[in-house]
């Protein structure tokens, strides 16, 4: 299996988790929203973990590009984590406007991040690394 295909599918799944949580927030169903948001958060962070602990180190070791794309991706993960924390706070405060505002920024950040990964980093990874072995290693961390 290609690394690109495996991780791109995870991106799409995380988007859907977010969409569900956002819908519950906009309807004011806070209990449902909390459950759905936790699912989104857990899956997104798991996806980040797969990249940061498996893909990026292997990519860096194989290509020698330590300060390249993987650093930028880590930086964007950190930005996304900060926004996810802020979303959680807004959810606890039951502040709908704030949740939707932070969520919109997060969504755009994640989408432009995903575009870069899907168009540049993943194809490069597939060029340099063994797809099947990498996918297996990442799958061991859990399923998004």
């Amino acid at each position, binding site marked *: 299996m290609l690394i690109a295909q495996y991780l791109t599918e995870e991106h799409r799944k995380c988007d859907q988790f977010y969409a569900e949580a956002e819908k519950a927030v906009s309807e004011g169903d806070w209990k449902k929203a909390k459950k759905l948001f936790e699912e989104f958060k857990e899956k997104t962070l798991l996806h980040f973990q797969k990249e940061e602990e498996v893909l990026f180190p292997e990519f860096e070791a194989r290509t020698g590009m330590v300060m390249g*794309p993987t650093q930028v991706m880590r930086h964007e993960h950190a930005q996304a984590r900060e926004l996810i924390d802020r979303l959680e706070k807004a959810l606890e405060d039951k502040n709908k406007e704030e949740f939707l505002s932070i969520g919109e*920024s997060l969504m755009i950040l994640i989408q432009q991040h995903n575009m*870069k990964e899907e*168009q540049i980093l993943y194809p490069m990874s597939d060029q340099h690394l063994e797809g099947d072995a990498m996918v297996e290693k990442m799958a061991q961390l859990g399923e998004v």
Partner: protein
Amino acid sequence: MSAPGISLLYAPPFSIVSRFFLTSAVFGVVGSLIGIYQAVTGEFRFQALVHTFTLGFAGMTMVGALFQMLPVVAGAVIENPLRKATFVHATLTAGTALLVAGLWDFKKTLLIAGILLVGMSLLFILPLMLYKLLRLKSYTNTSSGMRYALLSATAGTVLGILAVLSVVGILWSEHYNFLREAHMSLMLFGWVGILIASVAFQVIEMFFVTPPYPEKFARALPPLILLLAFVGLFFEEWFFKIPLSAVLIVFAFLTLDRLRKRRRKIPDPLVSLWYLGMVLLIMSMTLYPFADFGTRSFTGFLLLYGGFVHSVILAMMYRIIPFLVWLHLSNRGVPNAPTMHEVISPKKAWWQFYLHIACISALAVAFLTENKMVSILTGFGYSLSFLFLLLNLSGGVFTYVRIAYRSDDALQR
């Protein structure tokens, strides 16, 4: 191997997009004022009016947005973007102003000065962007489509320059009508149509969480639009224009269908702007085959098509500016940087949407009734709408500047 990796590091400075967007809103206001003047005096200067919007508003926005989008969406990096953008923006702004002044009553010196500057600007940046895209190793439907858009824009600019040279009698005066028509066709369909479709392929699916566009359609659409625009140019009978209309209408319906099936169901003024844009595209392309160049129905087609482009541009601007304010502040290490709605509230975006719909409706009545009073009111409506856009975008830019300087001060202390 290092080039594509390093390309990810580039986030073009915020001042690039903001200067293009703010200038385009100013041209929108100026265009509306020109419209009011023409409605009051009854002197109709179609070309001057049209180019204030096409070049000053739409072209300005699209070039600015491409500076931002090419590295992110396509992985194509423009080195030293600030210097290049400064040159392109300055020449395009001055060139558009002179060209519009020249088109007012076809003054030779102004026209030549204007087209020279516009040519310097666009024939520098468009082929450069195209070159960067052609060097990519792999393409998505978006980056692939953008190549056709930039190719059309480059050719369309050359044709525009030739049209000006022919109208002032320097060369090929006998071919003026053909040059003008070819310029218009390439710019409307090849440049703007293909660019919007290519961006939609990525933006609609990813930002609104929708099913993807059919793969074959998305791959075939850009070259098909270009090909069919050519066919329509050489064969003027209405049935030769139907295929172009058909593919663009299919694109609009597919987009409407995707939006309807979106997973993100929250009410969003920007989704409404996309909906409106697609409905106007369907209306304009239904009229297109039956609207002969230069006739009144052709003006109707042009206004509807303009409404489509205007709607989509508004949707993009209201998303891009607030996001970049957050992104650049966050990159500077500002904690809790203001997020989307704190920069421009959804209420303001909704107001923009309602104002935009009111203007389009007024314009339709003005066009159909040819009533002077309604035309003047429409002009005022559009002035207000563009002024409101300018205020909201400036507000966003101001938020960025205020917080960025405050954080710089704090760092120095």
